[in-house]
């Protein structure tokens, strides 16, 4: 995958906002997608890169971010070629061959995904020819070129996904199974709550009568779901942009239609809208309705109980919020905060550097945040600039609510704000199954926001 080269202004840093250097990163590099492979049950990434590449990426993504752990096959389990000067000068294909051979003897997995770092990609290692050698022997190995300079881990995720589809999933021209859907949504590990969120999304989709190839996480069946991708009735892209390229690719490859809904549903209002749209697309509106009605009944009973606290708490509840998160969470959480809690957006920053061609859609989504409220959105990767925006935002006379990351800890103290770590890196969270989406996740999110608020006075 080739993404457009970044433009670099010629003026000195400080004179403009796009001088190139960024501080306090909000994503990993492309080979961070080793954790995309690791997010699939019984899949192990093989990292062909320099010493430290794999370790740094997984530590950032799964250690400093929700203390998620590297997973069954990722993190410290993943074998590495540990490429050095020798592999730079003479090329590293022999070393890789040896590594794959040894891996196949020692480790057991349903699929191995070779991900490459900057060294092999820069010197032009023909990784494909090495991996094809193993594939022709019937070994379950694929390769994805994920050198760090190619982009961030969102880019890497799409590359790994494409690699598995093109190299592992068989060609298929048989019938499609009505009611089976492939889900392309949150980025595993980058999104701290991906396990719980995907599980909740699966619950909703099954609730309305679909069967789901969830593809990632404990609630996925693993590679058998990947092999079933071509049989699905359609692809569901539940995110502003991530997964769209994959869905377009599957449309070309298998003639499979896709439905794109930029908003990951949080709360009953969004969930109802999104589920009805999906049900209509899938042609199952009848079976969907009872589920939605039942979920809403329960959801609003909880909200009813909460409303007493909400209307009577007298020591300062936030009225406006700032958010700095990847496009998916920024949009989903902004909609929830505005439409279900009545909080107004004071500053909205999207941090995952979405491809230029998708930015207009994202801007349009924020301009139509609700029928009577719009919000501007900025695309920034540099935390210095993001903090400048939050400092300058108008939070009215109520405590600011910051939906951000660990990087906002000091800032939150400075402006006496309420910080919820919902974006990478969320270092002061231990996250297992917690979710922020759907019906149940929304209630948990609500608990988190207001527990953090009342604790201020403890």
């Amino acid at each position, binding site marked *: 995958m080739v993404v457009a080269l970044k433009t670099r202004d010629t003026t000195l840093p400080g004179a403009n906002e796009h001088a190139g250097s960024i501080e306090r990163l909000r994503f990993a590099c492309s080979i961070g997608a080793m954790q995309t492979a690791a997010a699939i049950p019984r899949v192990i990434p093989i990292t062909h890169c320099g010493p430290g590449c794999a370790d740094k990426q997984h530590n950032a993504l799964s250690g400093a971010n929700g203390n998620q752990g590297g997973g069954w096959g990722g993190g410290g389990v993943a074998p590495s070629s540990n490429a050095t*000067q*020798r*592999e*730079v*000068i*003479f*090329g590293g*294909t022999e070393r890789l061959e040896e590594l794959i051979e040894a891996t196949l003897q020692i480790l057991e997995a349903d699929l191995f995904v070779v991900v490459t770092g900057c060294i092999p990609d820069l*010197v*032009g290692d023909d990784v494909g020819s090495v991996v094809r050698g193993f594939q022709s022997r019937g070994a379950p190995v694929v390769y994805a070129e994920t050198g760090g300079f190619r982009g961030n881990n969102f880019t890497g995720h799409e590359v790994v996904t494409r690699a598995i589809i093109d190299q592992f999933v068989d060609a298929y021209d048989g019938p499609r199974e009505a009611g089976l859907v492939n889900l392309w949504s949150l980025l595993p590990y980058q999104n701290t709550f991906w396990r719980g969120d995907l599980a909740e999304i699966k619950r909703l989709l099954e609730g309305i009568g679909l069967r789901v190839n969830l593809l990632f996480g404990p609630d996925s069946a693993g590679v058998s779901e990947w092999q079933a991708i071509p049989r699905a009735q359609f692809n569901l892209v539940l995110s502003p942009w991530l997964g769209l390229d994959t869905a377009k690719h599957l449309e070309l490859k298998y003639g499979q239609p896709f439905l794109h809904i930029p908003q990951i549903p949080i709360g009953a209002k969004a969930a109802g809208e999104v589920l009805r749209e999906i049900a209509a697309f899938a042609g199952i509106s009848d079976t969907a309705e009872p589920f939605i009605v039942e979920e809403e009944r329960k959801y609003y009973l909880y909200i009813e109980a909460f409303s007493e606290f909400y209307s009577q708490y007298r020591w300062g509840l936030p009225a406006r919020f700032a958010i700095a998160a990847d496009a998916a969470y920024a949009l989903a959480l902004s909609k929830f905060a505005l439409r279900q809690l009545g909080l107004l957006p004071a500053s909205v920053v999207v941090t995952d550097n979405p491809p230029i061609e998708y930015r207009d859609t994202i801007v349009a989504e924020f301009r139509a945040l609700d029928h009577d409220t719009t919000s501007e959105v900025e695309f920034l990767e540099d935390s210095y600039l993001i903090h400048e925006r939050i400092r300058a935002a108008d939070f009215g006379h109520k405590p600011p609510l910051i939906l951000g990351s660990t990087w906002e800890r000091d800032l939150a103290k400075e402006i006496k704000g309420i910080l919820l770590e919902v974006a990478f890196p969320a270092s002061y969270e231990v996250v297992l199954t917690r979710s922020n989406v759907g019906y149940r996740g929304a209630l948990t999110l609500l608990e988190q926001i207001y527990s953090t608020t009342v604790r201020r006075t403890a």
Partner: protein
Amino acid sequence: MSGKKPKQIAIYGKGGIGKSTTTSNISAALAEAGYKVMQFGCDPKADSTNTLRGGEYIPSVLDLLAGKRRVDAHEAIFLGFKGIYCVEAGGPAPGVGCAGRGIITAVELLKQQQIFEELDIDIVIYDVLGDVVCGGFAVPIREGIAEHVFTVSSADFMAIFAANNLFRGIEKYSNSGGALLGGIIANSMNTPFHQQIIDDFAERTKTQIVQYVPRSLTVTQAELSGRTTIEAAPNSAQAEVYRVLARRIAEHTESKVPVALNPEQLREWSSGWANQLVEIERAAERERVPA
């Protein structure tokens, strides 16, 4: 160690232009004149010093580095004609790895082990693959390595393009203490117009011609016997051409920043010469066929 700083020069030029032949003859002539010389081949082919050692290949620095964990730079130095120290950087097989990084590593190793000082070398000559395609091949002209660069070029336009590219590299590094240009070694000068073309290019880029080296069968014969012209035909006119060249290089002290032509200027310049060459051809034709 004497503490003397050796004179370090780099010779660049398009592949196949006669760079190694010229460099080896310069080294041979310098050694003959009593200088302690090292010739450092910076090309993955590792054949720069062949004619200094009777046509024999030597193990390269990178061959040695690949074979063992720690390499003593002495192991990569082999004696050639009249005690010339021969070194080959070496590199990966064609099509794999990064040859540029190989050159950087080999040069770094010798620098790190202070070999030039230890061997009390007077002149180090780097023979570098001519198209400065990446940072690795520019390493000899970067700060702290060679002080003077010479380029071997024929009047062939592709050779001149390569020389002009090199000039762009020198311009770039000149601001940060890199090597400056000593001049052009004009090779394969057979006709007056070859000389006119290269003279014109030198004038346009504000540099000089260090020596005109004619194409000669003596050189080919010497090469085929695995020797330099200095060694195989010491009394030939061609050997004398190389001796003069070597003397000029040894005595050369002041290098300059060339003024490289931009791609458009270079195109205009070459098409101007193409028209002139057609005219020369037509004139020759008219002479052969009298009306």
